[in-house]
């Protein structure tokens, strides 16, 4: 790669694009399907149902404490496939690069993706890249699609939650949102909090082994735990009550939320999983989470009950009950 920056000609389909693909992408991803440089990857898949998901990542800043947009892209899509109870197998990656992006930054992002993919045990098998003019594209946007095979006989669904079920959370809330916020212009504050972005397919697999009748999994990304639980309560037409004291939150995340006036239940997470399991399998599911990487701080945080359908309540540490509402629009720091 001769240029140290991405140029428009790297997206034009000619020799410079080939140079970018070969010297940068394929050299990094190094997958046998990719190496064939075909327009489509031809792959063996086991028989059964497949789970298919897609997501696009536009986070700014693209590097933040604990991760980058590449790590998010792979972990996020792996996790979406995992929530279907599927073993993730293959990923596609599509890049929109802004003219002027430093190649060195692109390489760092690709290396992140390779590392997470290796940890998750997934292959990046096909990709695409386009270059847009300076002033568009925020540096880099990444689209990924992920496919996996659903475990035999499994039928997870957000509409399957029943009164009595336990609500499990795999770890501390708010880490990702606060980590990203801490490096935003106009808001910066010092913190050790790192983004929690991580692939959770092994964790989900372990929980399914221990609790085969689990109803569903969901990762509380944008909109945080509040969006996640409200969606589940709505889909299943049940109510959910969360015990505020049982929810793990790091001290610094608490401090940052207090300073900015944020509700930690609405802050984004990128390496956490919510699991709804029948009560008799809750302890086993919890133990499996805690024994998994990224699940050390897992806890049972609440129960599904038969209150007003679609409502999520918080039993506050103070002893009163209030509603856990969904985020509307973006969460903005406040002084009031």
């Amino acid at each position, binding site marked *: 790669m001769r240029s140290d920056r991405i140029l428009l000609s790297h997206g034009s389909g000619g020799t410079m694009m080939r140079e970018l693909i070969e010297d940068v992408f394929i050299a990094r991803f190094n997958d046998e399907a990719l190496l064939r440089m075909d327009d489509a990857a031809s792959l063996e898949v086991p028989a059964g149902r497949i789970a298919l998901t897609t997501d696009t990542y536009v986070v700014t800043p693209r590097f933040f404490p604990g991760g980058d947009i590449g790590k998010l892209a792979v972990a996020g899509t792996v996790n979406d496939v995992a929530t279907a109870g599927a073993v993730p197998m293959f990923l596609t990656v599509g890049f929109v690069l802004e003219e002027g992006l430093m190649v060195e930054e692109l390489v760092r992002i690709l290396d992140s993706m390779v590392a997470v993919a290796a940890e998750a045990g997934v292959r990046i098998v096909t990709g695409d890249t386009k270059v847009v003019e300076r002033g568009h594209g925020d540096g880099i946007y990444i689209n990924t699609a992920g496919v996996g095979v659903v475990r035999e006989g499994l039928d997870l669904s957000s509409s399957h939650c029943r009164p009595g079920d336990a609500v499990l959370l795999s770890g501390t809330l708010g880490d990702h949102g606060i980590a990203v916020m801490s490096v935003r212009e106009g808001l910066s*504050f010092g*913190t050790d909090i790192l983004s929690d972005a991580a692939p959770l397919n092994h964790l989900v697999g372990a929980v399914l082994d221990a609790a085969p009748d689990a109803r569903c999994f969901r990762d509380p990304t944008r909109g945080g735990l509040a969006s996640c639980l409200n969606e589940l309560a709505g889909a299943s037409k049940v109510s959910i009550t969360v015990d505020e004291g049982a929810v793990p939150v790091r*001290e610094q995340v608490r401090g*940052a939320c*207090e*300073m900015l006036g944020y509700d930690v239940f609405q802050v984004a997470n990128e390496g956490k999983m919510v699991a709804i399991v029948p009560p008799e399998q809750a302890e086993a599911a919890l133990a499996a989470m805690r024994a998994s990487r990224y699940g050390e701080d897992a806890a049972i945080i609440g129960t599904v009950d038969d209150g007003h359908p679609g409502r999520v309540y918080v039993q506050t540490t103070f002893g009163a009950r209030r509603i856990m509402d969904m985020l509307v629009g973006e969460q903005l720091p*406040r002084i009031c």
Partner: protein
Amino acid sequence: MCLAIPAKVVVINEGDMAEVDIHGVTRTVSLSLTPDAEIGSWVLIHAGFSIQVVDEEFANESWELIKQIEWDDSDNPLEASA
């Protein structure tokens, strides 16, 4: 209009600027409204400034007092004396 939270002054720099700690999160704030703040002081911070020094001992005492408020049967509330 009152979101102000307690933070501990960790470092004092030039020009009334200081580093404060809120549950481990650090932020730069101005101490210009609280000239009495020192390293180790607890202050209330709002919009990048400290607005009050909070006396920790006093806060503890206030807490003890609250716990001692009683109601007496003759319909007159009693408050434990300081």
